[in-house]
């Protein structure tokens, strides 16, 4: 049966159709997807109206589960239920000073941490891709078609490895990515456009696992980031952990199983959230061994045990102001972003530092996704009334090279406006040297070992010359996503030298390609599942229609015909329970076939019934 899709008047697709553009806030604790609809940025909720997607992925017995579904299993199946995966992005096991906090089976591989799950060993990129896929699906269901472009946000203080990992995850999830956008900048766009603000603003963004501070100048439609700083391993999670440790001490608990640990972490988070509204929170839990926990946390104790975490956010704030060469009195307003800024002690500390109450008129959970949606809409080319604005962002950490003695030579200093390209010349230190090792690092420290290693290059084929005669130009280029490209070339001789790139972090291009291929295999599975679901719907429809026709007009058919129809119905019901969508389709076809005559006779009867009693002139038109 053919269905025709008819547009409502006024909703006919315009000749220059709008692009489906989305903004994604891929958070440590929660993620969101937003879009611009009728000129307004809106968060896309799920079927039950919930805007947030808990950033949790479970590799269950029956496949991948995300969000609230995965969340329901976090205490029952902690080792296969991955939370806060953002903290692992672009990181190796040695980077994780808090690895013991996670109940996962970590697998160390060079430069990148992986997690052993029921579904095999997963990299944080793959886990994030599963989350992004869920967000993409939500957007596609809401927008009625494939996403044309997405802006995904990252903490401003994310380094190159963490950014690249995020971009890889988006690629893996099949999202056409328009831009990586810094979270505080996204918030500033949402806030600034909403309030038509002018002047210098600070965005204090304390998320689930990361802290960012950005200082921006808003002037005639230009959002210019002056400086950014932060801590990519400090967030609401750490407050939960403090409460968790306090519970263990207060209730004098013995070492916990992964399930009990996760249960108490959940309880700790609930207590933290309660304390934003109440003076005390009771923590009640029943552990696996039957013993129970019953302790009460007061606001005063909570403030005390988390005091140094709040204080820890202030050093980056001071550094950002210093880099922007500004005083607190130069700041016109402080925008709070991130769920963790709901904590009264955080608000108090910010107000005290800046000498003014922070701005809290936007939902701190949603403002980043909304800003990302606005940026995505603009980049996708959808025209809006006030889209005459420009964003100038910066790179958070200096980029440089290793030089003799294990020292860093900075090529691009932190807080440089991006995009940026810089070249620097280096030379050989030995006579006849034909190759040069180039080690790219990111960070502020003098010694290479204290910085993050990004990539190792080897420039080969330098013609033998006396030491110091070769002129090797190394070019750093940072694009608008904040991602780095490095090229090296011997200048003097014109001889083309080759570069071997070996990423010292994250996933190699080959790995990404393999994962993409795997995901296509999964896509094939997905298509199979969809075809089956569609065939089942069709089968149910035709079975119901046939049964009702037999009930009302059963006398129109003979016994032979009746037996054929009953046989076809039985076959249809049998394949309806199976998984072979082709067999089910064939059964639908055969039922269609044997009911053809019957349907025609029913049609005749209904026509003659309709005609009875009608006057002839009513028929001729």
């Amino acid at each position, binding site marked *: 049966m053919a269905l025709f899709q008819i547009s409502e008047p006024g909703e006919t697709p315009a000749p220059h159709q709008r692009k489906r553009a989305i903004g994604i806030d891929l958070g440590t604790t929660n993620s969101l997807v937003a879009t611009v609809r009728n000129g307004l940025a809106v968060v896309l909720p799920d079927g039950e109206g919930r805007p947030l997607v808990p950033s949790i992925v479970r590799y269950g017995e029956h496949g991948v589960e995300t969000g609230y579904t995965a969340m329901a299993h976090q205490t029952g199946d902690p080792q296969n239920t991955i939370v806060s995966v953002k903290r692992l992005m672009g990181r190796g096991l040695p980077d994780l000073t808090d690895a013991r906090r996670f109940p996962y089976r970590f697998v160390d591989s060079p430069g990148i941490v992986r997690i052993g799950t029921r579904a095999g060993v997963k990299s944080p990129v793959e886990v994030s891709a599963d989350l992004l896929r869920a967000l993409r699906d939500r957007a596609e269901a809401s927008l009625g078609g494939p996403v044309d*472009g997405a802006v995904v946000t990252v903490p401003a203080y994310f380094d190159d490895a963490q950014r690249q990992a995020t971009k890889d995850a988006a690629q893996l999830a099949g999202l056409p990515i328009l831009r990586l956008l810094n979270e505080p900048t996204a918030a500033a766009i949402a806030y600034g456009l909403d309030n038509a603000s002018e002047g210098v603003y600070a965005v204090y963004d304390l998320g689930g696992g990361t802290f960012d501070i950005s200082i921006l100048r808003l002037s005639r439609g*230009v959002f210019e980031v002056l400086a950014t700083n932060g801590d990519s391993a400090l967030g609401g999670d750490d407050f939960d952990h403090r409460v968790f440790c306090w519970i263990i001490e207060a209730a004098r608990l013995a070492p916990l199983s992964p399930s009990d640990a996760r249960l108490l972490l959940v309880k700790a988070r609930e207590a933290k959230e309660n304390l934003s509204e109440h003076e005390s929170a009771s923590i009640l839990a029943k552990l696996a061994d039957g013993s129970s926990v019953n302790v009460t946390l007061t606001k005063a104790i909570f403030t005390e045990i988390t005091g140094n975490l709040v204080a820890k956010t202030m*050093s980056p704030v*001071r550094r950002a102001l210093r880099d922007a060469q500004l005083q607190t009195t130069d700041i016109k307003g402080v925008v709070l972003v991130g769920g963790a800024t709901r904590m009264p002690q955080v608000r108090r500390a910010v107000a005290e530092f800046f000498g003014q109450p922070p701005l809290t008129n936007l939902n701190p959970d949603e403002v980043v996704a909304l800003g990302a949606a606005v940026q995505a809409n603009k980049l996708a*080319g959808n025209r809006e009334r006030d889209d005459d604005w420009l964003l*100038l962002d910066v790179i958070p950490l200096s980029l440089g090279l290793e030089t003799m003695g294990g020292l860093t030579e900075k090529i691009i200093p932190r807080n440089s406006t991006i*995009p940026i390209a810089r070249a620097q010349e280096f030379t050989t230190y030995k006579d006849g040297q034909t190759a040069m090792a180039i080690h790219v690092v990111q960070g502020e420290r003098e010694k290479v070992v204290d910085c993050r290693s990004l990539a190792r290059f080897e420039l080969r084929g330098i013609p033998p010359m006396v030491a110091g005669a070769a002129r090797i130009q190394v070019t750093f280029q940072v694009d*608008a996503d904040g991602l780095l490209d490095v090229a090296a070339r011997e200048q003097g001789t014109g001889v083309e030298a080759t570069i071997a790139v070996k990423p010292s972090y994250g996933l190699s291009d080959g790995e990404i390609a393999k994962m993409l291929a795997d995901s296509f295999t999964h896509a094939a599975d997905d298509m199979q599942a969809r075809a089956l679901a569609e065939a089942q719907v069709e089968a149910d429809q035709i079975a119901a229609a046939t049964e009702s026709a037999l009930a009302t007009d059963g006398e129109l058919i003979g016994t032979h015909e009746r037996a054929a129809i009953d046989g076809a119905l039985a076959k249809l019901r049998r394949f309806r329970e199976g998984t072979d969508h082709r067999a089910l389709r064939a059964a639908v076809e055969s039922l269609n076939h044997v009911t053809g005559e019957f349907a025609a006779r029913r049609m005749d009867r209904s026509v003659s019934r309709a005609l009875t009693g009608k006057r002839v002139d009513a028929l001729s038109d």
Partner: protein
Amino acid sequence: MIDFSRNYFDLFGLTPAFRVDGAVLDRAYRQLQTEVHPDRFAGGSDAQRREALQSSARVNEAYRALKNPVQRAQYLLRLRGIDTLSETDTALPRDFLERQLERREEAADAQAAGDLRALSALLADARAESQALEDALAQLLDGAQEFAGARMQVRELTFLAKLAEDLDAMLAACES
């Protein structure tokens, strides 16, 4: 996009000079970025996007060079064929050097003692001396057009800028 053969001043419609009107520079910079920034070409061809990336990077580099007095002075001399960065003659007046050595020692002591006030005072001092040098440079470069003669001041200014940067880093280290 933009013409890469134009000098930085020309790019922003400014006359080459040491004294620049910061507000005029800011406006010209923002205007130019509005035209060439990669965000404008997100839906463009690979070639367009590459060109936007290069143009925008060039405008950022030019802005950074002109915004900062030390880099601006260096660039102005380079336009006259004087490269203050790769000169073999890097001599500085003895009294200037002695004063800087003294400051560096004081800074090291202050850092060891965690004396933020002393570090801030040294930084303010270095900035005041830079300001005086900048005024002198404005006279030399914009007034007397003494480009070769300004080399010493530019070197001193470069030296002081490095000192200020290090003091800044020390302060940041003490604070965190």
